[in-house]
């Protein structure tokens, strides 16, 4: 009860500030909000990529029969890719044997003379030249192919019951023995996860710098306030807790702002033609676990960081004393960054070997290299600033230059932070772009694998004729 009262006092102290204090809190909440919104956005994009990949993998989870094998409890599929009016059309003739799995998006495997088509295919069939296309889709349309069976809302795809002439050739079929996701688990590319991790770092790093800079605003007022509270009888631990509550409160506000911005932005994005054609609205959702992790994790992280940061401050009734350690500014930081670049370079040069490694290793190598680059750059920028300050100060032609250089030498971290933020962002964007390209390449390869046997067995313009 006492702790609750104290927390209430902390919230009161945090919430009732002057203009500068309110501006500082608003900037911090805005920064955290932007971070949360972008983080949720990255999670949504990751989820969308994963959802599409899952549907793709569910469709192509297949095995092929040997010359004398007979399928039991399987669904045979004969996919046929063709083109109509410049658009790719995929028709899949299907036959269920025993308790074979039902393709995703279908209520049942179509019987001969029956078809289930995607909304886009149906629209084409009902269009001006639909009769030409209808010749390739035998039988009556029994219903729609649901979103679970579509890679994208505009995909032109349909399932038809396999005609008799195909049923006689099971060795040409793709045999779907099982559809559950565990069949394909482990085949998921690490690229989306790496991309997400990089995106999260790319987003959070500059925002963390922004929040750090914002906390310096009205620092004098804050210190006066903390000292006054200490004079009023708060213990050192209570004052640190009050400051941490303030930060956590700002983080909660930031989460609310960020969550709201994300939901609004997602609604807006879902209406864009480019997004609407590629993704289902449900693809852009964020899993509840990620929501919970962000909404709880960010304030807890902020609270922890603030508490740790306050450990160096000794709040006395007369003011704040910093337990400063003389920082050695060594030349080893560029070497650390260089080592990180080397690791990333090796990973890029031997990409095939790295991606072939067991599951956590590729991620460890890439993120480890990135970590070294980040830490190295974080240390290098202040070191460069310190060196530059010393050099300029020793040759300063004017008092203003001397003052500026000495200030830079005394506190190179503040200036270095901005430079470091830009440098890190450039590095992360580069790595992120590489991950996106790798993911695109992987996705393309997946589709080819599914259709490959058919490209070699049938002419591209073949028609699946009915019995």
């Amino acid at each position, binding site marked *: 009860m*006492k702790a609750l*009262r104290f927390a209430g006092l902390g919230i009161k*102290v945090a919430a009732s500030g002057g203009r500068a204090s309110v501006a500082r809190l608003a900037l911090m909440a805005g920064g955290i909000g932007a971070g949360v919104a972008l983080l949720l956005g990255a999670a949504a994009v990751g989820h969308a990529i994963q959802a599409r990949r899952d549907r793709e993998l569910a469709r192509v989870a297949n095995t092929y029969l040997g010359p004398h094998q007979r399928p039991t409890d399987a669904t045979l599929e004969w996919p046929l890719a063709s083109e109509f009016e410049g658009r790719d059309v995929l028709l899949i003739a299907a036959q269920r044997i025993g308790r074979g799995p039902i393709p995703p998006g279908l209520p049942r495997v179509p019987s001969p003379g029956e078809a289930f088509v995607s909304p886009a295919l149906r629209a084409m069939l009902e269009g001006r030249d639909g009769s030409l296309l209808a010749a390739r889709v035998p039988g009556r349309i029994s219903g729609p192919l649901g979103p679970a069976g579509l890679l994208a809302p505009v995909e032109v795809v349909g399932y038809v019951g396999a005609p008799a002439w195909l049923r006689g050739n099971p060795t040409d079929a793709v045999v779907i023995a099982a559809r559950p996701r565990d069949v394909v688990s482990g085949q998921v590319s690490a690229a989306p996860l790496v991309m997400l991790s990089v995106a999260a770092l790319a987003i959070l790093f500059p925002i963390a710098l922004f929040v750090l800079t914002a906390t310096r605003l009205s620092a004098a007022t804050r210190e006066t306030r903390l000292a*006054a509270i200490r*004079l*009023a*009888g708060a*213990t050192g631990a209570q004052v640190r807790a009050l400051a941490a509550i303030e930060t956590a409160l700002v983080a909660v506000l930031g989460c609310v702002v960020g969550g709201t911005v994300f939901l609004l932005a997602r609604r807006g994005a879902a209406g864009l033609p480019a997004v609407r054609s590629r993704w289902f609205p449900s693809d852009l959702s964020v899993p509840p676990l990620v929501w919970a992790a962000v909404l709880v994790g960010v304030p807890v992280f902020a609270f922890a960081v603030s508490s740790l940061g306050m450990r160096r401050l000794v709040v006395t009734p007369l003011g704040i004393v910093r337990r400063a350690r003389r920082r050695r500014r060594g030349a080893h930081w560029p070497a650390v960054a260089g080592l990180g670049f080397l690791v990333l370079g090796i990973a890029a040069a031997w990409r095939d070997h790295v991606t072939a490694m067991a599951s956590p290793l590729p991620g460890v190598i890439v993120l480890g290299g990135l970590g070294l680059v980040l830490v190295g750059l974080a240390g290098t920028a202040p070191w460069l600033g310190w060196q530059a300050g010393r050099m300029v100060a020793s040759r300063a032609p004017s008092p203003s230059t001397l003052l500026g250089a000495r200030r830079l030498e005394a506190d190179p971290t503040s200036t270095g932070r901005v430079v470091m933020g830009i440098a890190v962002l450039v590095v992360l964007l580069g790595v992120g772009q590489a991950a996106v390209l790798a993911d695109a390449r992987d996705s393309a390869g997946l589709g080819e694998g599914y259709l490959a046997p058919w490209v070699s067995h049938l002419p591209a313009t073949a028609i699946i004729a009915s019995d």
Partner: protein
Amino acid sequence: MTGSRRQGVQGPLLVAEGVAKRFGPTVALDGLSIEIRGGEVVAVVGPSGSGKSTLLLCLAGIIGPDEGEVRYRGRALGSLSDTVLTRLRRDEFGFVFQFGQLVPDLTAVENVSLPLRLAGLRRRDAEARSRAWLERLDVAAQAGKRVGEMSGGENQRVAVARALATGPRVVFADEPTGSLDSLNGEVVMELLVSAARDQGTTVVLVTHEARVAAYGDREVVLRDGRVAEIPVLR
């Protein structure tokens, strides 16, 4: 926490014995000794740099002396942990400084309730007691205002209310009228001393103004970190 409880205190409440304090090469206090009895109002006077404020901070346990000892009710402050000292400051001491002792983000009533709430009192109870003190010091109308929205005199009255609201045994006042004009200074001193006397609170008053020092029962004059004159009872 009533005045009657304090009436019986006869022995020294605060004792500084051979206290020395240096800030680098500067000697602020040079083996100073002083005794303060319960319920008395002591004015510590002297020129700038004579060590008045340093003495007050040592007596309140905010800073520790390099040599010597400060005892409060027989207990050496130097032997107490930071937590105990903090509790002492919260429950038994009150402070009125020239400025800076109020939390700028809180309203007057919240400032006065702060030490009460830190001591665990319910908000409603703390604010009720605080409002009574604000009324007594004639600043009830300012209860909802923040530091920046009040005049210097009003701020000091709020500070006095906060210092006395916990029913402290000792109030340490360092140049409490330093930022005020003479009229407001008189009013604040009048209120501080009369309220303190009403509840038997000891007041250690640091000032360089003779008219403020005149509110004390006795004066202790400091010069170069030492007591320059033998305290004279008024």
